[in-house]
C-alpha cells in the first residue's frame, strides 16, 4: 500500500470536507448515539448492576456489602427456587413441544386449500393479541372447579368428571401450560404456515410423480425444509417461557402454595415483596444465563448461516 493512506496525494483547496460534508459524515452517528447510550446504560449497565447486587447482602434496600457468591449458594439451596426452576423446565418443555405440534398440524391442515382459511387463521391467532393477564383471568374462570369446565361437563350428566387441576398442587403447573399453549400455538401456526407457503409447489408435484403419499411428502420433504422455522419458533417460545410472569400472576398467583412458581415470579417476590434484593438479583442473573444459553447457539448458527448464504 502507498505510504499516504488516507489523505489525497495532490494538495488543493478542496482537500478538507466542507461544513455540509462534515455534518453529513457525523450526523448518522449522532442520530444513533442516544439509542446506543440508552442501550449501554439501561441494558448492559443494568445487567452489570444487577450482577453486582447479586454479590451483596442487600435486603429491603440495595446496599453494597459484598458477600461473594453467597446469594447463589443460598439460591441453589432454596427449596422454592428449585421448585421454580423445575417448574420452568416442565412448563417450558411442555409448552414448547405442544405449541410446535399443534401449530404445525394446524398449519399443514390449513395449507390444504381450505375454504375460509383467512377466518380460521384469524381465530387461531387472536389469543396472541391478548394480554397474558386477560388470558390468566379467563382460564382461571374456565378452570374454576365449581363453575367452570368441570361444572359444565358434570351438568351434561357426567357426574364423576373431575378437572380441578387449578387447585391441585401437583397438577396446577399444567394449567399454565394449557393457557399458554392456547395463547401462543396460533402464532406458531402462523410461522409454520408462512414457511409452508415458501415451499415450491413443484416440490409436491415432483414427489407425487415419484409416487410418494401425502403424509410421506410432509415427513420426508416438507418437515426438513421447515427446520429454520422450527428453530426460530423454539427460540421465541423458550424466550416467552423464561420471561413468563404475567400468566402465573393472573392464573395461579404461584399457588397453590408455591407449586406454580417460576423463576420470574420468584425473582419478583424476593426483590419487591420479601425484601431479599440480593437473592432476587441472583435469580435474575440465573434467568439471564438461561436466555444466553439459548440465544448464543441460536445467534451463532444464524450468523454462520448468513455468512454461508
Amino acid at each position: 500500500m502507498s505510504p499516504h493512506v488516507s489523505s489525497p496525494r495532490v494538495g488543493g483547496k478542496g482537500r478538507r470536507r466542507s461544513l455540509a460534508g462534515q455534518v453529513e459524515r457525523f450526523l448518522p452517528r449522532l442520530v444513533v448515539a442516544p439509542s446506543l447510550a440508552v442501550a449501554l446504560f439501561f441494558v448492559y449497565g443494568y445487567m452489570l448492576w444487577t450482577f453486582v447486587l447479586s454479590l451483596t447482602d442487600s435486603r429491603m434496600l440495595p446496599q453494597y456489602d459484598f458477600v461473594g457468591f453467597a446469594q447463589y449458594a443460598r439460591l441453589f439451596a432454596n427449596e422454592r427456587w428449585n421448585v421454580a426452576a423445575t417448574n420452568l423446565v416442565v412448563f417450558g418443555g411442555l409448552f414448547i413441544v405442544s405449541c410446535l405440534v399443534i401449530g404445525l398440524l394446524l398449519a399443514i391442515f390449513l395449507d390444504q386449500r381450505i375454504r375460509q382459511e383467512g377466518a380460521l387463521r384469524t381465530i387461531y391467532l387472536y389469543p396472541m393479541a391478548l394480554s397474558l393477564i386477560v388470558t390468566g383471568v379467563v382460564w382461571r374462570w374456565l378452570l374454576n372447579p365449581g363453575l367452570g369446565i368441570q361444572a359444565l361437563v358434570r351438568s351434561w350428566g357426567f357426574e364423576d368428571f373431575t378437572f380441578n387441576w387449578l387447585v391441585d398442587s401437583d397438577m396446577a403447573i399444567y394449567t399454565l401450560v394449557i393457557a399458554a399453549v392456547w395463547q401462543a400455538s396460533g402464532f406458531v401456526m402462523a410461522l409454520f404456515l408462512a414457511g409452508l407457503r415458501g415451499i415450491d409447489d413443484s416440490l409436491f408435484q415432483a414427489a407425487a410423480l415419484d409416487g410418494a403419499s401425502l403424509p410421506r411428502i410432509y415427513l420426508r420433504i416438507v418437515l426438513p425444509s421447515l427446520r429454520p422455522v422450527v428453530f426460530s419458533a423454539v427460540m421465541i417460545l423458550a424466550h416467552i417461557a423464561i420471561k413468563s410472569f404475567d400468566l402465573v400472576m393472573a392464573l395461579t398467583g404461584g399457588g397453590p402454595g408455591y407449586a406454580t412458581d417460576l423463576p420470574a415470579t420468584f425473582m419478583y417476590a424476593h426483590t419487591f415483596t420479601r425484601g431479599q434484593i440480593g437473592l432476587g438479583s441472583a435469580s435474575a442473573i440465573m434467568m439471564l444465563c438461561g436466555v444466553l444459553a439459548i440465544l448464543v447457539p441460536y445467534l451463532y448458527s444464524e450468523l454462520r448461516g448468513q455468512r454461508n448464504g
Partner: protein
Amino acid sequence: MANMVRRRSTSARLWRFGLYALLIVAALVYLLPLVVMILTSLKPLEEIRAGALLSLPSTISFEAWIKAWSTACTGMRCNGMSGYFLNSIAIVVPAVAISTFVGALNGYALTKWRFRGANLCFALLLFGCFVPFQVVLMPMARTLGWLGMASSTTGLVLVHVVYGIAFTTLFFRNYYVSVPDEMIAAAKLDGAGFWRIFWRILLPVSGPIITVSVIWQFTQIWNDFLFGVSFAGFDSQPVTVALNNLVNTSTGVKEYNVDMAAALIAALPTLVVYVLAGKYFVRGLTAGSVKG
C-alpha cells in the same frame, strides 16, 4: 399445493370432511374462552352461580360492564377500570410514538449511512430484544426514583421507550435494508441531505413498517404487566395491573361477570387492532422473530 387431492375419490372426500371437522373443532376450542368471557359478562350473578357456562344469558345485562368500568374495586379503591384505562392510553400513545420514531431514525442511519461500527451498534441494540426484564427491574426502580419519575406514567413511558427501541430498530432496519441504496444515492446527487432524504424519500415509503411497528409496540405496551406492577403507583397503574387487582380483590362477593367484563375492557383495544390490522400484526410477530 394439494393439487393431488383434486380428483375426489371416496377416501379423499372422507379426508376432506375429517379435515374440515378438525379445523372447525379447533376453531371452537380457540373461541371458547372468548365466548365464555362475553356470555359471562352479560349475565347476572345468580345465573352464573347456577352453572351452565355456555348457556345464553336469559336477559342481557350490561350492569357488569358498567360496574367494571366505573365502580368495581381494584384493591383499596372502587373507581372501576376507567381511570386505569386512561392511564394505559397515556402511557401507550407517547411511548409508541417515540419508540417508533427513534426506531425509524436508527434503522435509516444504520442502513443508508453505513458508518464504521454500524453493525456493532445494531448488534448491541438488538440484545435489548432478548434481555429478560427481571434483570433490569431493580436498577430501573432505583433510576426512576432518582429521576423523580417513580410511580408516574412518565416513568413508564420512559421504560417502554427504552426497551421498545430494540424492537422498532430491528423492524425498520430490516425494512430499510430492502430499500434500494441507489434511491438514496440518487437523492444525494439531487442535493438532499440526511434529514431531507429521511422525510421526503424514506418516510413516504415506510407506511407498512410504521404500521407494523405501531401495532407491535401498541400491543406490547398495552399488554405489559411486569413494568406496570413494578414501577407504577396507585394513580399511574395501567389497565392490566388494575385488572389483576380487581380479580384478586378478596373483599365482598366474587363477581365473575364483573371480572369478565373488566378482562374484556382490558382486551378490547388490542383485539380491535388485531381484527382491523391482523396482517400487520402477524408481520410484526414474524419480523421480530424470523429475521431476529
